[in-house]
């Protein structure tokens, strides 16, 4: 205990020094406590057995059983001498084994000794030299028989029945769930089966034991969802990772792909698209990208690749499991669609038992994850002048003007009767806006309510879910009362799901899944001012306006007493349009989407009819998706603001003279898809050791979307697996399917894959290593295909059509105005082929640690691409020349999953799991023309990672990479792309030709595709409390921020971000002050503003993705209204991010720094179960 105190005493100091966030501090503390507790628990081990024991007039054997049941102790004795049927009583409050035994045998002729977990009994004063050997023999053996069934009454085949603590004595249940086993009288039986809660029962002779195993939700990971089915984890030989819904539900993101971030090894997911409500999508890759074409994984929901049922619209509460299939063995059955990996989402079903009702309510508050620090107008003017001075130009603002902005009221007479009016005028003219605050809310509420209901009987199961979510936007729009319409940004969504199963007969089960959502979002009209209804553009403008609009720009609306109508819009100077006007005064847009998905399946057990283990499944599903959008457009009069600082006056000049009234519009769209599939499944164990399973599945997809040509997909898949004695595993998978992309003779392809596994830990020679729970080696090899080429379809056919519309008059007709040349066809074209290999092992240790390791390689060949060696002067647009199978790419990487799971004490449970995945990519062939030999890099694609960024190397060795004098510039290699100034970057002349030009560009950092992704989850529970902390991050990712309007300083007359406020000036340089940016410029651009070491920034980051603290109310408080459990929790999302960007106002996770920023969230919730 001394140590613990020391640690506790020290930890606050450490915390202060390191500035660890409070939540982290608590966790560190908990961790220390956990270690301490573990130590103390070890110290007292062997002491406490039971809280208390009180038994009266029972047989000695009953006491032994009780103790054996609740501890690791085993009694060993010779029944002839000890007479275990003697009647005893015991009453021990301490529960210590020594105390119990002392009481039991006090005054009797029995002595005891404790040897490890064995309690050896003997007659006092009589030495039993060979006690251990004799006792087991002499304890009477009995024959136990029983039947193991699941909660539905179905027999469980292959369950293990073992004598407790004597694992060598066991049996396996047969096809009817029956077992028999000989054990010593009084022994305990341990019945276990993967995916079920292990049970321990007393061995009772002459009685058929009826054992009902209950499915263990905690053990879900032990059953793995694979393509078109499930598999025991132990038998899986492919590379599959999954996440359970409890982890997903920790996220308060409304978007499932965001919630999956960092949770699944090998799945790289990041919120590339920013944080706008309804548009906060993530980018997802499985094991990187291996093609120049679409690298998107295939996504299946309950076995169907729905075309419009967006996985992001699913409510996490309706999901049972998300699995990611990575290697060829796992994805081969998807054939021509499986090359980029597969994400399988399984929805929930009810379980037989009492109905369960769960209600949860979440209230969150969202705000932007990052925001630039404030820039005051007078500081802006100073930096603007600094930038002009760097360019050799005169200052734009005089000292007097700057002074006026600092002291707008200077010189006013307080006694003047117009003083108040003058103050308003001056503050309006010499303004100091904080635009971000004026245009965006500090935080916005988000509400989620979920009710779900599940249960079932032996014939019927059901799961019913209803979910409501309201997501508010961060736009600070004017009120509906003033505008007459609602232009604010929000999203409402209702999800409903009803999944039902019914056993028509003992062998026929029908399942009906119906899922639907109804989503409405609202946003500003955004159709005027050239936006064309694109709110992404509006957000972009609004956000960078907010960030960079000159701080002394008036507005956005006119105050009373300014000469024109109060509330009139002011058009921002230096801008193409007023995004604030677009946000408020251009009308509204409301869009409603209705989606319905229905699936009907029949599972027919042919075990009795044809052969045991055979079943047939047929499924039909459809998906319907419709949208109805309505909006109103209008435009409004607005004015320019014209300041005159000389006379302290201003005026307004008309900008839009002819406003338009609100006019309504509407649009609709609808889509549907149909999937039909039938499969034969077989699973049987022969002779206890031969486990055989097989699957054959055929399916057809058909869908129509808008005006596109109907889509068709057709395929046959199969799998055969064999397991010998739970030790040797082999599996063969194939997909045979066709693609509309190819000529009839090239259309169908066969995609085989095979895998083998060896469960080393099940070998008899490994049994002695008790600490080894599991060791499995795996290998897989296979081929999968990809037929996607952007949005191009039927790529074997010429895409040529004639349509109306003429460039000049009198040639052609209204119907035939011009010829459209699209992609020209190539009859020889076929799918691209991925050859994948996976080496892996799984390891379980000490019943608390598990490891999974994978090393994978992928060679993608025949990548569909346009030839790059066809010159443009031949005259067919390079975008239209026929595709050929020519590209080659290579991927490899390592994946590691670790978990630690332990009841540290009876009350304290700790769970830690982490994962890390790497991806190394190289383009082997891209049909790329070679550059001349004066280029440092003669290729920019071939030989590099896909998307590798290129730029100039800054010569950091010389004056930190800056030119510090004109002489310095004159003596350095000449920059050919502009005129370098003092304070601009100095580049390395890598080809040594005396000039810096495009030939000196070299690869810098990485690409926009991460080469590393990881997640770390630490969770635990202590009595009623539970907590979870989740970190995730990406590495080896970079972006070229050169040219981005929110990164450079000079667009639209300038704004200066925090890192530009300490830009290079000779003065700062000479004073050895920290310099964080090259010399500011007011010109169009500078030689520093090119792709280089500085602007190609490292986007790697680690994010504190989730923190959650929950408290489950004690049961005794819940004895009302049938409440079973009630949990209160508070959580945070995206609370902190560690990164490497030069800027501090951009979130590294989002690709477009001027898009809607990623948000962070604080959430309060309650979950009640009835």
């Amino acid at each position, binding site marked *: 205990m001394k140590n613990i105190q020391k640690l506790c005493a020290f930890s606050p100091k450490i915390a202060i020094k390191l500035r660890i966030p409070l939540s982290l501090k608590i966790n560190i503390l908990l961790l220390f406590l956990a270690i301490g507790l573990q130590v103390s628990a070890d110290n007292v081990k062997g002491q406490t057995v039971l809280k208390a024991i009180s038994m009266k007039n029972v047989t000695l054997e009953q006491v032994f059983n009780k103790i054996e049941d609740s501890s690791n102790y085993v009694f060993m004795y010779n029944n002839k001498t000890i007479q275990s049927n003697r009647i005893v009583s015991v009453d021990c409050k301490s529960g210590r084994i020594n105390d119990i035994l002392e009481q039991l045998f006090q005054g009797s002729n029995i002595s005891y000794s404790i040897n490890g977990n064995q309690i050896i009994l003997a007659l006092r004063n009589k030495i039993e030299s060979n006690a251990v050997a004799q006792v087991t023999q002499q304890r009477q053996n009995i024959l136990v028989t029983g039947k193991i069934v699941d909660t539905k009454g179905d027999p469980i085949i292959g369950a293990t029945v073992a004598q407790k603590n004597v694992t060598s004595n066991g049996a396996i249940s047969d096809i009817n769930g029956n077992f028999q086993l000989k054990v010593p009288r009084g022994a305990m039986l341990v019945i276990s089966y993967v995916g079920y809660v292990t049970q321990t029962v007393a061995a009772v002779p002459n009685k058929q034991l009826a054992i009902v195993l209950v499915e263990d939700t905690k053990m879900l990971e032990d059953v793995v969802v694979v393509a078109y089915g499930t598999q025991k984890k132990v038998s899986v030989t492919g590379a599959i990772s999954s996440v359970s819904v409890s982890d997903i539900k920790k996220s308060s993101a409304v978007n499932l792909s965001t919630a999956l971030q960092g949770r699944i090894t090998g799945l790289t997911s990041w919120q590339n698209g920013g944080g706008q409500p309804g548009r906060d999508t993530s980018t997802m890759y499985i094991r990187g990208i291996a093609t120049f074409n679409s690298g998107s994984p295939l996504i299946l929901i309950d076995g169907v690749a729905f075309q419009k049922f967006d996985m992001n619209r699913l409510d996490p509460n309706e999901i049972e499991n998300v699995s990611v299939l990575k290697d060829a063995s796992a994805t081969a059955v998807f054939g021509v669609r499986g090359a980029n990996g597969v994400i399988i989402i399984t929805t929930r079903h009810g379980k037989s038992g009492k109905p369960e009702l769960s209600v949860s309510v979440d209230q969150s508050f969202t705000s932007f994850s990052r925001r630039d620090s404030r820039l005051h107008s007078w500081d802006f003017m100073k930096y603007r002048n600094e930038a002009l001075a760097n360019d050799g130009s005169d200052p734009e603002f005089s000292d007097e003007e700057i002074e006026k902005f600092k002291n707008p009221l200077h010189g006013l007479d307080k006694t003047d009767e117009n003083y108040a009016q003058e103050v308003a005028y001056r503050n309006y003219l010499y303004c100091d806006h904080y635009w971000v605050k004026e245009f965006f809310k500090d935080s916005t509420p988000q509400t989620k309510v979920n009710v779900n209901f599940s249960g079932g009987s032996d014939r019927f199961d059901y799961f019913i879910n209803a979910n409501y979510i309201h997501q508010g936007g961060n736009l600070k729009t004017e009120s509906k009362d003033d505008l007459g319409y609602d232009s604010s940004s929000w999203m409402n969504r209702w999800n409903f799901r009803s999944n039902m199963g019914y056993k028509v007969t003992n062998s026929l089960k029908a399942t009906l899944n119906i899922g639907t959502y109804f989503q409405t979002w609202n946003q500003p009209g955004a159709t005027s001012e050239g936006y064309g209804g694109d709110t992404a553009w509006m957000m972009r403008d609004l956000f960078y306006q907010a960030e960079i609009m000159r701080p002394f720009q008036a507005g956005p609306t006119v105050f009373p007493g300014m000469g024109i109508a109060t509330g009139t819009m002011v058009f921002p100077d230096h801008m*193409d349009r007023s995004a604030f006007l677009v946000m408020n005064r251009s009308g509204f847009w409301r869009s409603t989407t209705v989606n319905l998905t229905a699936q009907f399946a029949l599972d027919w057990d042919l075990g009795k009819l044809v052969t045991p283990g055979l079943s047939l499944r047929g499924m039909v599903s459809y998906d319907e998706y419709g949208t109805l959008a309505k909006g109103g457009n209008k435009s409004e009069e607005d004015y320019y603001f*014209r300041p005159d600082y000389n*006379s302290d006056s201003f005026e*307004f000049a008309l900008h839009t003279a002819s406003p338009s009234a609100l006019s309504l519009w509407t649009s609709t769209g609808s889509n549907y898809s149909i999937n039909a599939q039938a499969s034969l499944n077989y699973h049987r164990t022969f002779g206890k050791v031969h486990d055989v399973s097989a699957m054959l599945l055929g399916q057809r997809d058909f869908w129509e979307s808008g005006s596109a040509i109907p889509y068709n997909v057709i395929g046959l898949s199969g799998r055969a697996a064999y397991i010998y004695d739970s030790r040797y595993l082999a599996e063969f998978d194939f997909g045979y399917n066709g693609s509309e992309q190819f000529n009839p003779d090239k259309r169908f392809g066969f995609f085989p894959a095979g895998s083998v596994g060896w469960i080393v830990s099940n070998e008899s020679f490994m049994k002695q290593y008790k600490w080894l729970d599991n060791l499995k080696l795996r290998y897989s090899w296979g081929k999968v295909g990809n037929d996607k080429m952007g949005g191009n379809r*039927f790529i074997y056919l010429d895409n040529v059509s004639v349509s109306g519309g003429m460039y000049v*008059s009198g040639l052609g007709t209204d119907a035939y105005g011009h010829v459209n040349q699209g992609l020209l066809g190539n009859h020889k074209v076929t799918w691209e082929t991925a050859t994948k290999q996976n080496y892996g092992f799984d390891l379980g240790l000490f019943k608390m640690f598990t490891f999974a390791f994978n090393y994978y390689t992928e060679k993608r060949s025949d990548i569909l691409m346009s030839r790059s060696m066809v010159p443009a002067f031949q005259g067919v647009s390079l975008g239209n020349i026929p595709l050929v199978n020519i590209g080659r790419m290579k991927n490899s990487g390592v994946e590691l999953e670790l978990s630690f799971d332990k009841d540290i004490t009876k009350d304290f449970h700790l769970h830690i799991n982490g994962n890390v995945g790497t991806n190394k990519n190289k383009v082997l062939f891209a049909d790329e023309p070679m550059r001349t030999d004066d280029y440092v890099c003669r290729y920019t694609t071939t030989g590099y990672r896909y998307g590798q960024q290129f730029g100039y190397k800054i010569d950091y060795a010389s004056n930190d990479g800056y030119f510090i004098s004109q002489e310095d510039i004159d003596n350095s290699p000449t920059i050919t792309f502009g005129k370098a100034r003092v304070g601009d970057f100095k580049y390395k002349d890598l080809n040594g030709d005396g000039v810096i030009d495009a030939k000196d560009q070299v690869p810098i950092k990485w690409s926009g595709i991460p080469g590393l992704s990881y997640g770390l989850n630490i969770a635990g529970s202590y009595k009623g409390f539970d907590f979870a902390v989740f970190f995730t991050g990406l590495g080896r990712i970079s972006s070229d921020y050169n040219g981005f309007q929110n990164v450079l300083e000079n667009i639209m007359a300038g704004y200066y971000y925090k890192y530009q406020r300490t830009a290079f000036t000779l003065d700062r340089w000479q004073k050895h002050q920290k310099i964080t940016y090259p010399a500011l410029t007011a010109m169009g651009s500078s030689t520093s503003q090119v792709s280089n070491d500085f602007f190609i920034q490292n986007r790697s980051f680690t994010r504190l993705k989730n923190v959650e603290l929950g408290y489950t109310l004690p049961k005794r408080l819940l004895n009302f209204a049938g409440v079973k459990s009630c949990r209160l929790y508070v959580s945070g999302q995206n609370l902190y991010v560690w990164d490497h960007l030069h800027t501090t106002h951009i979130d590294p996770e989002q690709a477009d720094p001027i898009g809607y920023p990623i948000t962070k969230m604080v959430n309060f919730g309650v979950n009640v179960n009835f």
Partner: protein
Amino acid sequence: MKYIKYLYLLLAVTATGLLSSCNSILDQAPDGKISYDDIFKDNDKVAAYLNTCYRNMPGKGHLYFFFERGPACWSDEAWDGDDNDVNWAGSALMYAGKASASADPRWSVTGQGANCENYWDYYWQCIHDCAYFLQQLPTATVTSESDRSRWAAEAHLLRAYYYEELLRWFGRGLPLVETPYTLDQSYAEVKCASYYETVQFIVKDCDAALACADLPWRITSDGESGRLPKSLAWAIKSRMLLYAASPLYTGSDDHWQEAYTMTKDAMNALSAQGYELYTTMKNTSMYAGKDSHFAYDGYDDNLKLKAGIYAEYFCTDLANSATPVDKETIFASRFGMGNSIVIEGVGCQYGYKCGSCPSQELVDSYETIDGNPVLNLSTPYNDEETHMEPNYNTENTMYDPTNPYKNRDPRFYATVYYNGSQRTSWWSCNELPSCYENYPASAGWRTRKIMTYVGEPLSGVSSTSRTLTRTGYYIRKFYDPNVGPSNYHGEPNFKEFRYAEILLNFAEAAAHAGHADEAIAAVNKIRSRVGMPNLPAGLTGDALLQRIYNERRVEFALEEQRYFDVRRWSSPTGDLAKTDKWVTAMHITRNSDGSFTYNRAQVSGAARGCYTNKYLKCAIPLDESNRILSITGTSWQNPGW
């Protein structure tokens, strides 16, 4: 056993549904896609194919990315007022010298309502289409033989037009696409013709058009609007021969005699078809009325009228008629310019931006009304590159540097708004107290004095604001005298070829070929249209050439000629340091008594980057030049890229 039946039934259904006719399930549903063979079997579709050959004709005027008057702003004619605010578009990148082979802002343009985004790729596509059309046409289904004949002629002329554009921008010989390339052929043997051979190929196409009796000389109805007239064939020949004989392209050969003959033939042939300079005003109330404001009170009334005629020509669209009012325009771009007063002109009129600001150099090139140049044309500036010290023409006694906008060529007043000029239209600005010449006045229809002096808040010169001039001048050409926010109307389509060019092309060729008298006569036609005195008789040699060059500069101000002229006049090893490196502004100080002091100043503290040798020709796109080098083993890349 009844289950067995179901089982078989189910299996049968499954098997039928899934496996039978698998292949045909994946066939494409009918969608109207056709083959090229189908196209040439139907008269209307053949016509539609020819229509498609028109698709990549470029947008001109201010339809360069990003709504810029590209070549005018990239030469010494003007400075783009968007240099700050649109620093990712053409002008700012050119000024910074940031063109590269992978992104040359001159061809990596995004079409602003026009269709051309990448000259190299897009022109080659249409050249291919014309060649393919010509290959297919003889056997194609065409109901009228006269159509067949005319369409062939149009395709030849279109091909000539696209080649002409490629030669102008890229300035080098090109492969000659008589018959279209096929995708499966090897390009290793493709050779570049010389510049002169390429011009001859263009001439051949033009001659094919000229030989066609079914191709009309001019488009006479709106039903054929936008189509190429036969007259264009002569105009292209005239321009191309002049180019082929110019120093940048000619090499050691002398093509002036041939250029003289060809430009003369062009002049005569077009003249015979009724082409002539625009000399009669149509809308006198607008162009000669009290609100036209060409020049100032006291300027010669006849010359004011001449300025009005010249202005009206650029502000009016060519009507498709057999007897057009405008007999000068040979071919105008088909792209409408939209309500472009929003993006050019005096920025405060609408309030958005001022666009192209005419340079002091352009203003200096306007003669005084006595026909004397203001500057010494052989050495216009004593500081040859920086242009701060004008070398005044000693023979000019009329020019007054303290009152520089007096007594100038009428075309000056029709082209440029200068300090003190006036405009009557809708102004969306209220005058501020420091707008001394205009205060007080509020937004509305009125006459405003356009004051460009330093400090004038609404129209004075500025180095940063988007609405204020960089140079002290605003563009006036192309905008009718009264257009504004209350009466938007589209600027007329850009006149790509006009008869005045035919005359000046001839004058230049004739001067080189030793026909000075004929040259002077042609120039005088141009001058007399605007009331300027004839050139002195007896001018020859360089003195004559300099007057012709200056005439081109003035007559074609802001019309995309100057950019190409200064280039073709350069030697292949030369650069544009004397013209384009530094561009100057007039910084005018308003004195307390209301008088003005004129000071020249550089627009920017930094030299432009786009004057060096490599900027004489555009870069061939890097990927393409790399491909060509890889395939053919020879580099086609222009020097310096």
